[in-house]
């Protein structure tokens, strides 16, 4: 059964108003961030604020076009669009223009265009299409592989473009999967890997080995409830450890401590497997797989971090983990960003009166660090208002998503929430020093046509789907 509906009267105007408010706030803060005496007119199109006004106008047109297109279009063409964007990503990786070290841009005359921004939209669409199809059971290997295809392929290509920030955005889709019933075990596993990652960097491989051994012994006890097994296991490890250490010492082999322990661990594990098999101790294999898996992860993290990450990326992570303090080196941006925001105090320095942002102490003050201008000129009150607007938008989208009757619309809604939330957390988090510096824009606020349009499309497709929510009667 179909009902004809009036698109304009069914639009969720609250969302639209929040969107317009954010876009407007973004525009006047871009004006302030790059304000200079020679170009005082906010309509000066040679300046960023003038250009942003063009992008905004175009975004409004795009929004209207989206509202006109039939809602079934997005679901129907989801895979096709995703495929097209993936092709574009490949093209841009091979032939794109390099800006700030990322080969992520397509250039058409004066207009630059970043396909990665649009990959977020199509990934959200494809994900919604796939997860909303019938006979899908989430927690199966086959499903995981298909999901990985949808999410990880664009992510990998974007990583190849050297645009780490945009690639990381795709991890946000875990939120969608979580809502759709991703097993807690998988999630916990994910958290465990992240914890391993962090502990490896902070405390080193050796500590992780000892830690995971200890953890494995505790789990062994939890699974079997018998101390004897634990003592025997620990005893075997200690003896073989002592043996290996002794051999290393006596023969002066100068093998590093790391390998001595690893060797002892392998040796004692083999010994223990035989013993466990003999005595029918359960789930030893699983534990050992996890144990060696963890050590493998720790080792590869260490290896990847030291050999594959570029030094500025290492520094940013070290900075955040508190392993490195260099306020005039890698920490300079963060420090300046905090000075700008902190010096705004409660009420701010006033519109156009910010000095830290205007005089370039804060980098990228109209794009990634636009929040500094808001914090500096409008103070805590301004920060509070902006964060409130974002939270209202996110919660409103959550409400909208949950009221969808079609799974596709709901899942897509969560896709929108994931992407916006991730940008919001990372962008504001980095300006106040809570997360590492990852160059991604603040949705609707930051300067840039590509990102504004992409976020507009992302949001308005969902608003369009929401308009037609009553068409689907389940």
């Amino acid at each position, binding site marked *: 059964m179909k009902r004809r509906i009036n698109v304009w009267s069914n639009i969720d105007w609250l969302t639209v108003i929040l969107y317009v408010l954010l876009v407007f706030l973004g525009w006047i803060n871009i004006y302030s961030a790059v304000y200079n005496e020679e170009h005082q007119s906010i309509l000066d199109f040679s300046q960023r604020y003038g250009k942003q006004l063009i992008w905004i106008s175009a975004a409004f047109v795009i929004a209207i076009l989206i509202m006109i297109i039939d809602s079934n279009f997005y679901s129907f063409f989801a895979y096709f669009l995703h495929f097209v964007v993936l092709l574009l990503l490949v093209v841009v990786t091979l032939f794109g223009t390099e800006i700030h070290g990322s080969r992520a841009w397509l250039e058409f005359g004066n207009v630059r265009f970043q396909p990665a921004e649009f990959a977020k939209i199509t990934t959200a669409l494809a994900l919604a299409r796939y997860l909303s199809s019938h006979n899908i059971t989430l927690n199966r290997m086959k499903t995981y592989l298909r999901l990985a295809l949808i999410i990880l392929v664009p992510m990998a290509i974007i990583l190849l473009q050297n645009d780490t920030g945009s690639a990381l955005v795709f991890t946000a889709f875990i*939120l969608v999967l*979580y*809502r*759709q*019933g991703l097993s807690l075990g998988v999630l916990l596993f994910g958290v465990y890997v992240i914890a391993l990652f962090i502990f490896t960097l902070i405390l080193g491989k050796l500590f992780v080995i000892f830690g995971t051994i200890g953890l494995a012994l505790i789990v062994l006890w939890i699974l079997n409830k018998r101390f004897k097994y634990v003592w025997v296991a620990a005893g075997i490890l200690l003896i073989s450890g002592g043996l290996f250490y002794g051999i290393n010492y006596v023969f002066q082999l100068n093998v590093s401590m790391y390998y001595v322990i690893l060797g002892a661990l392998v040796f004692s594990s083999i010994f223990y497997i035989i013993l466990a098999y003999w005595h029918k101790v359960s789930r030893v294999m699983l534990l050992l797989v996890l144990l060696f898996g963890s050590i493998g992860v720790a080792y590869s993290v260490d290896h990847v971090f030291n050999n594959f990450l570029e030094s500025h990326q290492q520094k940013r992570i070290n900075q955040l983990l508190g392993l490195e303090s260099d306020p*005039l080196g890698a920490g300079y941006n963060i420090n*300046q960003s*905090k*000075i*700008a*925001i*902190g*010096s*705004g*105090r*409660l009420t701010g320095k006033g519109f156009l009166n910010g*000095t*830290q942002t*205007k*005089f*370039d*102490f804060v980098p990228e003050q109209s794009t990634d660090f636009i929040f500094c201008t808001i*914090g*500096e000129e409008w*103070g*805590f009150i301004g*920060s*509070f208002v902006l*964060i*409130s607007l*974002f*939270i209202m938008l*996110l*919660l409103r989208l*959550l409400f909208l*998503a*949950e009221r969808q009757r079609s799974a596709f619309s709901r899942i897509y809604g969560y896709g929108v*929430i994931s992407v916006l*939330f991730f940008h*919001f*957390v990372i962008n*504001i*988090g980095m300006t*106040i020093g*809570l997360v590492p510096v990852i160059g991604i824009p603040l949705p609707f606020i930051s300067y840039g046509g590509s990102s504004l349009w992409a976020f507009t499309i992302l949001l308005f497709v969902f608003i369009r789907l929401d308009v037609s929510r009553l068409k689907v009667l389940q």
Partner: protein
Amino acid sequence: MDTFAARRNIIAFVILLIAVIFLVKLFLIQVVSSDYTPAATNNVVRRITQYPARGLIYDRNGELLVYNQAAYDIMVNPQHLSHFDTTEFCRILKIERSYLEKKLQEAKNYSRYKPSIFLKLVSSETYARLQEKMYKFPGFFVQPRTVRKYKYDNASHVLGYVGEVSDKLVDTSSYYKSGDYIGASGLEKSYEGVLRGDKGVKIYLVDVHNRIKGSYNNGRYDEKAEVGTNIVSTLDIDLQRYGEKLMENKIGSIVAIEPATGEILSLVSTPGYDPGLMVGRQRTRNYQNLQQDTLEPLFNRGLMARYPPGSTFKVMNALIGRQEGVLYPGTTYECHGGFYAGNFHMGCHNHPSPVDLIESIKVSCNNYYAHVFKRILQDAEFESISKAFTNWKSHLQSFGLGDKLNIDLPSEVAGFLPTVDYYNKYYGKNRWGYLNVISLAIGQGELGITPVQMANTTSAIANRGHFYTPHIVKRIEGEETIQQRFQQKHETMVDSVYFEEVIEGMDLAVNGEPGTGSTARTARVDSITVCGKTGTAENPHGKDHSIFIAFAPKDDPQIALAVYIENGGFGATWAAPTAKLMIEKYLKGGPDIQWWEDYVTSANLLNKKEEDEEED
């Protein structure tokens, strides 16, 4: 159906949790912490010192002597340095590559984020050449300064020079900062407070590249630099230059004073140096060269050299004798080749005998003053020679001898007058008599008197018994009068009535008929009555020093002066004609007889130091 709907609550919770974490963190850095505001101010505010031009210095006739010239310090801020064409940079600034490297390292060691001086006092021409290319050298900028410029290469000892403040002063003073200039000697030093003006500050907003973006708060907190106050010196630059010309190739000093005011008309100390050497980048090297010069050009002999006054001192003993009533105009002594007392003999030269007071000065009789001094010390008025000696000394002190005059130039010394204690220590208490100190009668022995003290004494004689403390500044711009202490009349302990015979003697010493024993006829000027007295200071290290004191005209003294020429022999030989030429220059604009000027200027007495005394 949808079995995971409850998870939306967890998602909502996570969103809100993040919002709360952000707001708490923002509250902490924006509202609670107050560390960021000063950090922000520090970032954008640059205080740039405005260096005022120093006050100008004029001579007594309004001629400009010292003024300022723009110079530029090249500054470097290491944090803004990037690759640049070092070869071109060195070529423009005319510096060695090693200098560049050394200075850049020093600047980095000092501070990576604060500017420091890279190259001092670059000329306007170099600056102009650099300015065109400045954009090629990020991290360098220019700080305008002013340096002293001298119209004449004379009067360096009076004018002094300007140097960088010492680290010690920077630590203790609230005004001076490292790299500031300060008067280091002469007038520049003693009038530093007047000449320096007041530094100002301009507060600018700068961006991250240290580019000035505007003034802070519309300049509300800026302080304008106050230009230094101009000074009119008492110096007569023509006379000064003439004096220096006369003293070329001679070691010594001329100090000329206007008796009516105590104004120093000229203060020559030779060898001198070109004050222009003490300016600019070569200053340190030039200073070292001057310091190592064995003729000590940096030593201001006019204020710092102590000489025995020689026979010029006879006029003092004459005045004291008169005041103490042990000597009368009619007092006569016969002189037969000197003063004899038992085995003691002090020689005298050949002159008509006997002589009275006036004659004794005219012919400079040693014997006469031995007697006078003996009577001064054996005056029955005093119970002991100690008391008489102390009284004698206090007369001298009333002329400004033996103590600093406190003139307005630095490094003046007190000179030396012996005390009773001095002789007690040397001979034992009450173990010495007038014979032990008889050389004081003729100005030899334990006397150390500076040229300026001697000139001042002459001025007191010209004034018939009083003087004004000699001073070098005539007027400070914007001030009604000079310091009170320079307007204060100092009466000597000798009444003015006792001066006439002495002055008469000084007149005759210069203007007496030829062949009558006048000792200073070489100082004679036809149209001016010059009064003077020769002196020859015994010099144990070489040829005697030639001394002459004089004032003129006799009845309306305009100039009083003392001339010291080391190793010049008799006072009449060099010092007297030099004084005469100075007087002529000052009163008439030049010498009557050019021969005398040529005679003096052509003399080279620098190498006479070690020669034996010539026979005469």
